[in-house]
């Protein structure tokens, strides 16, 4: 009798474990933490499924905050944080969220995360928070976050969602940083605030570096349209290197 009870208990326990596994990873099979499928979730958004250049999401903030490199980098980090956490939270709640208000629930979670980040930065990293000013609040409106919550976190376990969140935010950040690099370099001749092309004085004689040869900054790069053109060039380069992204006709 006892052995049978024990067996029953053991069976129940494995069942429970399986259920938990199912809940956490969204698949029945036991997977290695960085199995090839999981690695793909993390790395796909960097190239084949990039949120900006392939899915064309999050263009708005790619225009707004890529004038300089530093805010672009900090913005990318903040998006990684918000996206990873909101993906995990939505994924944990995915079986209890009522279908009809799921978008509202997602919005509330993202907004709460963003406010939390903002408040904590204001208290413990005041200078960073000043540097970012309104950009932190703007993360709420970033379509990539809602897109990934809706498309991925609602149907997958928390661990996979975490990877998906980090991957997509990194893919977004990568493009942001590339755009900001060109815009700051060509628009104001600086990188991270350092005058890498030399110093522009009032006259040619006062100038050093490229400016002494008569080089001028292209002020057009400071305006948003140039960000779109840079995105276009990035998409062009990416597709010429990665042929499977090209549509059939």
């Amino acid at each position, binding site marked *: 009798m006892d052995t049978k009870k024990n067996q029953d208990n053991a069976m129940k326990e494995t069942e429970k474990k399986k259920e938990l596994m199912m809940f956490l990873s969204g698949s029945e099979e036991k997977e290695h933490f960085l199995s090839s499928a999981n690695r793909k979730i993390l790395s796909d958004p960097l190239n084949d499924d990039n949120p900006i250049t392939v899915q064309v999401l999050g263009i708005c903030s790619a225009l707004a905050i890529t004038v300089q490199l530093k*805010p672009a980098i900090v913005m990318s980090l903040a998006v990684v944080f918000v996206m990873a956490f909101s993906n995990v939270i939505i994924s944990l709640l995915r079986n209890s969220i009522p*279908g009809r*208000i799921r978008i509202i629930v997602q919005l509330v979670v993202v907004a709460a995360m963003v406010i*939390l980040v903002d408040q*904590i930065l*204001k*208290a413990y990293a005041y200078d960073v928070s000043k540097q970012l*000013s309104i950009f932190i609040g703007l993360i709420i409106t970033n379509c990539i976050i809602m897109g990934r919550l809706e498309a991925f976190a609602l149907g997958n376990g928390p661990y996979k969602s975490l990877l998906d969140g980090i991957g997509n935010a990194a893919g977004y950040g990568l493009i942001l940083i590339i755009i900001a690099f060109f815009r700051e370099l060509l628009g104001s001749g600086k990188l991270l605030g350092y005058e890498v092309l030399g110093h522009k004085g009032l006259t040619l004689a006062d100038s050093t570096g490229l400016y002494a040869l008569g080089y001028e900054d292209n002020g057009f790069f*400071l305006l948003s349209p140039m960000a779109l053109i840079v995105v276009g060039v990035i998409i062009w380069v990416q597709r010429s290197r990665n042929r499977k992204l090209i549509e059939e006709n």
Partner: protein
Amino acid sequence: MDKNGNAYTFIFAIAMVIVVGVALSFTATQLKPLQDENVRQEKMQNILSTFVGEKINVEGEEKELTRDVASEVYGEFVSEEISLDNKGNVKKDVDAFKVNLAKELSKPNDERTYPLYVANYGEDKFYIVPLRGSGLWGPIWGYIALKDDINTIKGVVFDHAGETAGLGAEITTDWFMERFTDEVIYDADGSLIGVAVVKGYSGGTDKSDNAVDAISGATITGDGVSDMIQNILKNYEPYFKELKKSDKVAIR
């Protein structure tokens, strides 16, 4: 319970709002003292930096003017905090440091309180006026330090809430703020006109023309800076006149 039923949806929504609301208000109230302290220290740092720049000389020792240092030594250098109305009368019962200029500016002009800070650094005396105005996207503010002739600018500090990075936000950079050093706020006829931010400025290093060069791509923010300086300073004019009449000020 039916997960798509009305009852469940309502219960879920209510529970979610309560949980999120409690969590956020708890964090906000917990962090509020820290945040307020940061803002207070930054105000002291801004006031001090208008006349000392980035490094402060405390009893012969050069120190980086960080927020911590600023709040420590603020009392040593800022000797008076005066609350004024727009007629130049001193309001004795108002703590100038606690005056919120944004709130004051929303009142009718004759009910406003204008703070003025008087500081001594080395041999020199400075008058520091807090500024506030509007840029392109939101408020801009700052401090302006006048030398004891109440005409020449010792230094300025600007800040903003949401000007465009790389364009309007450049008003907070050192190279822009340095342009104001040694400019004068009275014109040749002796009327207070402040310092204008001018597009296509051709004055070079002329310090007596009440104008500095603008930032390309930041015309509206630049105009906001000009207006801010003029609109705020003119409310101090009656008090400045009194000061100049008395022996306290060396008239040039």
